[in-house]
């Protein structure tokens, strides 16, 4: 087996995380170090449980992959042959162990719909697109949410607070589809400043050499500045949509946490030392309030992925979400199973990392 592109993508996206782990490992106390090791070790059974659940749930949902592939007119013999080819005729536990060993070898089987196309190849095209969407969205949502939440807390029971709280409820309750459509119609069609759908201008796309399939990185690598600008331009609406879905949660959470920290003794103590109010709020209160927010980031990551599924569909963004939706429609068992596995594993990894960040940030945590 050649080294798959997915491996590259996995490693590059996990690279940042690993760098952080390394940094935390080297900088942290002995307790933190052993916590990191423990937490990493604990992630393994967690992932195993997740993939096991996915495997068995996939077996019980209705819909037959063989029929959807061969069509209703195929003979029983052909169906049987196909089942054999896909390994669906084997006992379920054999299939289960094949699936597990496949995950370990980064071999997720081949797509049912697209013949012998390895799913790893398909995912390695899709995952970077999703990363390119969710990383800026998460950054934007967290950044905006935390700042706005802190601002609201600082001006508690004044009009910015009421406005932001109202805003957070409104954006949180708006369906992604609708929000995306509003953006497409207003900012896209109405004002004509942003493209409706896609990842990059189709004409510029022709000149862009893709390596990682994260277009911003690709255009930076090749020094293709028009492509970089275009990729950023196309990123605006989907990012805004996805970020707005999350920002409400972060506003509310940061607000309540900052309000709670603002009544702590050390805040009064800092004020009594004449520390600038801005520093009191944005350093002392916010840094402490952020600690629980970090945990929430881990929890919200799955919401982010769910939002990404819808955003990708709304903006024809060829990422994991769109892939999942398409393949569910096509009853592409192996593809759906693999995509969900990737989703679940990334949630597990992110929650591991946020736990470690939490431990890293809060010196009081006992491991």
């Amino acid at each position: 087996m050649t080294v798959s592109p997915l491996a590259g993508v996995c490693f590059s996206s996990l690279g940042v995380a690993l760098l952080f782990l390394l940094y935390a490992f080297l900088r942290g106390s002995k307790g933190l170090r052993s916590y990191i090791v423990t937490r990493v070790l604990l992630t393994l059974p967690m992932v195993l449980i997740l993939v096991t659940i996915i495997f068995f749930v996939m077996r019980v949902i209705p819909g037959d992959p063989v029929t959807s592939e061969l069509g209703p007119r195929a003979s029983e013999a052909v169906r049987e042959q196909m089942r054999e080819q896909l390994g669906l005729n084997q006992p379920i536990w054999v299939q289960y162990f094949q699936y597990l060993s496949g995950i370990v070898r980064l071999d997720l089987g081949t797509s049912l719909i697209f013949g012998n196309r390895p799913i790893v190849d398909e995912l390695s095209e899709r995952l970077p697109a999703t990363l390119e969407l969710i990383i800026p969205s998460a950054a934007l949502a967290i950044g905006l949410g935390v700042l706005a939440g802190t601002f609201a807390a600082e001006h508690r029971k004044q009009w910015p607070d009421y406005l932001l709280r109202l805003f957070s409820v409104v954006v949180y309750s708006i369906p992604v589809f609708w929000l995306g459509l509003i953006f497409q119609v207003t900012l896209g069609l109405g004002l004509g400043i942003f493209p409706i759908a896609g990842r990059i201008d189709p004409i510029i796309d022709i000149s862009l050499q893709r390596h990682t399939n994260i277009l911003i990185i690709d255009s930076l690598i090749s020094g293709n500045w028009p492509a970089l600008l275009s990729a950023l331009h196309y990123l605006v609406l989907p990012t805004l949509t996805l970020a707005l879905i999350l920002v409400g949660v972060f506003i509310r959470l940061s607000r309540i946490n900052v309000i709670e920290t603002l009544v702590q003794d050390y805040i009064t103590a800092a004020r009594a030392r004449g520390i600038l109010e801005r520093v009191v709020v944005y350093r002392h209160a916010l840094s402490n309030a952020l600690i629980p927010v970090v945990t929430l980031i881990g929890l919200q990551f799955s919401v982010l992925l769910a939002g990404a599924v819808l955003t990708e569909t709304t903006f024809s963004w060829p990422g994991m979400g769109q892939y999942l939706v398409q393949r569910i429609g096509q009853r592409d068992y192996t593809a759906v199973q693999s995509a969900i596995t990737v989703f679940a594993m990334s949630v597990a990894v992110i929650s591991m990392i946020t736990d470690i960040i939490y431990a890293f940030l809060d010196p009081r945590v006992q491991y």
Partner: protein
Amino acid sequence: MPDDNVIRAENLSVQYKTRAGWVSAVDDVSLEIRRGEILGLVGESGCGKSTLGKALMRLIRHPARITNGHIWFQGIDLMTLSDNEMRQFRGRNIGMIFQDPMTSLNPIQRVVEHLIETIRTHEPAVSDEDAHARAADLVDRLGISANRLDDYPHQLSGGMRQRVMISLALALNADLIIADEATTSLDVIVEAQFVELLQQLCRDLDLAILMITHNIGLVAEVADRVAVMYAGRMAEMGSACDVFKEPLHPYTQGLLKAVPNIHLEEDELYKMEGSPPDLVSPPPACRFHPRCPHMMPVCSKVQPDFETARGDHRTACWLYQDVPAEYQDVREGSKA
């Protein structure tokens, strides 16, 4: 007028907003703290002593506010300062130590970061290195080894944390330290160590210290002068000897008798009737009158002034003041 007062509050009132309306937490209180003395401010919980301490630093925040009064600090009325000027005053001229040193230090900031931040906020010209050196010097003076500077608050013992709080209050050579229940969370031996340190600092640095506490024994041990608050008002103020030996206000009298004394032979404590009033709807006039054994008709009608009874010894009680004429005739019938 030349005086050796470091701070003098005049007719200070603080109100805070509750669902039931505005409540006076501190009502028309005046006091002064002199250079080189420890003023003990005592009273039961809810009497407004902590609010008063914060009011002196203008640390009162929404939904509470200072509604009246002046705070003279070395000739400047703090009430006339802008927020930013007042902020610069805090830390630089007035330091504060809080009840729980664990929660008064930022849990995710190292000790040294607290100190450097405080120094550099007020003296931006000081380099990080110099601030660090000053921090090390400071904690060393307070009996903490400099290698604890990089610790987080939770890694220190209670006594050490409280010393760190003092070092923060002293980082800029403040003239006044307000210690708000600073020993309450400490064990008795550590508490004794801590007040010894405070006394020593007060002497050595010629500080003024306002010690707010409910521990009357502690005040008797360390304070030069004592102020007693009841239900948001000043009841009595005088030198420690005067107040403890000859308490004037009936509340002070009762309070002192109710304090356990390990050295006295008596085996029963004085029991004061009733409990402190609810500040939302306090009794009219003298707020102590419903519990007072010397209650007179005037006590429920007119609030006595807080005025000198003997020398430096002031109290707010009709027993020591001329009762207005219309209430005088019934004085004979009082319990006194």
